[in-house]
């Protein structure tokens, strides 16, 4: 059973990475002005980097569009998630560097904090029916299953690290034991890898937030002042 599940997850891990890479490439092709700084009249390279940092570190877009309360939760979410990702770096490297070891305790605390802003953000997004709300739900489920593994249902870390390192080094190994909580957590992460680029692409193409000029999709019809003239010309 563990062998079959391992093969299933190995396949879907690579598929998820392919979707992530393809989604990014699609964005790059379809919305090049949002990525390139060389567009005439677009923001300069430095300003682009500053905007990007402001958006990632301080959720600048949320502050502008959705108010201070949501901005606060979004910022907490971004920082907590950053620390949690740093903690997870220990699964991707051998030997584990001292820098990564230094973030283990703060990563645990951030892991316990993470669901709070996620619950708030998911609730607001669900209530407003804004696009991309599924991403917050996936984040929430991944976060809760992560806490469960840290506190109660401890998985075999050696087995998991061997599995993850095998995936990264393109020499996959099978899991010895199919731990249900870990597999659920891992499934949520894989779904996030797929859902994030799709949600971003949808948002970018729908809202065109970075487009300096948007061509109208349809030209409104204007009733002619004197329709009789047109009819005469046609005849």
């Amino acid at each position, binding site marked *: 059973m563990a062998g079959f599940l391992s093969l299933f997850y190995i396949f879907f891990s690579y598929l998820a*990475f392919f979707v*992530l*890479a393809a*989604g*990014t490439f699609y*964005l*790059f092709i379809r*919305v090049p002005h*949002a*990525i390139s700084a060389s567009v005439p009249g677009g923001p300069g390279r430095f300003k*682009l980097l500053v*905007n*990007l940092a402001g*958006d*990632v570190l301080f959720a*600048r*877009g949320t502050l502008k569009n959705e108010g201070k309360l949501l901005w606060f939760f979004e910022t907490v979410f971004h920082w907590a998630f950053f620390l949690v990702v740093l903690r997870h770096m*220990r*699964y*991707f*490297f*051998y*030997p*584990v560097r001292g820098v*990564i*070891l230094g973030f*283990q305790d703060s990563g645990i605390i951030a892991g316990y904090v993470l669901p709070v802003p996620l619950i708030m953000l998911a609730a607001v997004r669900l209530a407003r029916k804004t696009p991309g709300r599924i991403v917050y739900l996936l984040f929430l489920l991944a976060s809760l299953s992560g806490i469960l593994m840290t506190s109660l249902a*401890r*998985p*075999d*870390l*050696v*087995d998991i*690290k*061997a599995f993850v*390192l*095998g995936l*990264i*080094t*393109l*020499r996959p*190994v099978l899991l010895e*034991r199919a731990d249900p909580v870990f597999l659920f957590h891992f499934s949520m992460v894989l779904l996030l*890898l797929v859902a*994030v*680029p799709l949600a*971003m*692409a949808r*948002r*970018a193409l729908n809202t065109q*937030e*970075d487009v300096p000029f948007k061509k109208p999709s349809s030209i409104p019809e204007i009733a002619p002042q004197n329709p009789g003239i047109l009819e005469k010309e046609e005849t």
Partner: protein
Amino acid sequence: MRFRAMLILPVCLLTLAACAERVDKPKLESRGGTGPLAIKMKRGTAAPEYHFPREYWRTHHMDLIAKGDFEKRECVICHDTEASCNKCHLYVGVPKVCTIMD
């Protein structure tokens, strides 16, 4: 704007793939463990009855120590920290077990 940051994700994953070092996972030598992380136990070391199932001890020993049911000094009666405990501890990135117990 935000989706520009998404470019970082695949780049990070590819970087990880380039930097990652492949090593055999820690495993008992007697059960086919090879490489620098193979775990060595003294010949003839028999696990006591309370040490079963071994999987439970592998994943929950830290809780038992934290609760005070066991002490580290009891572990090192049978486990050589360098040849046994720290192979896994180093592999998964948790603090090393010191030989001198406080």
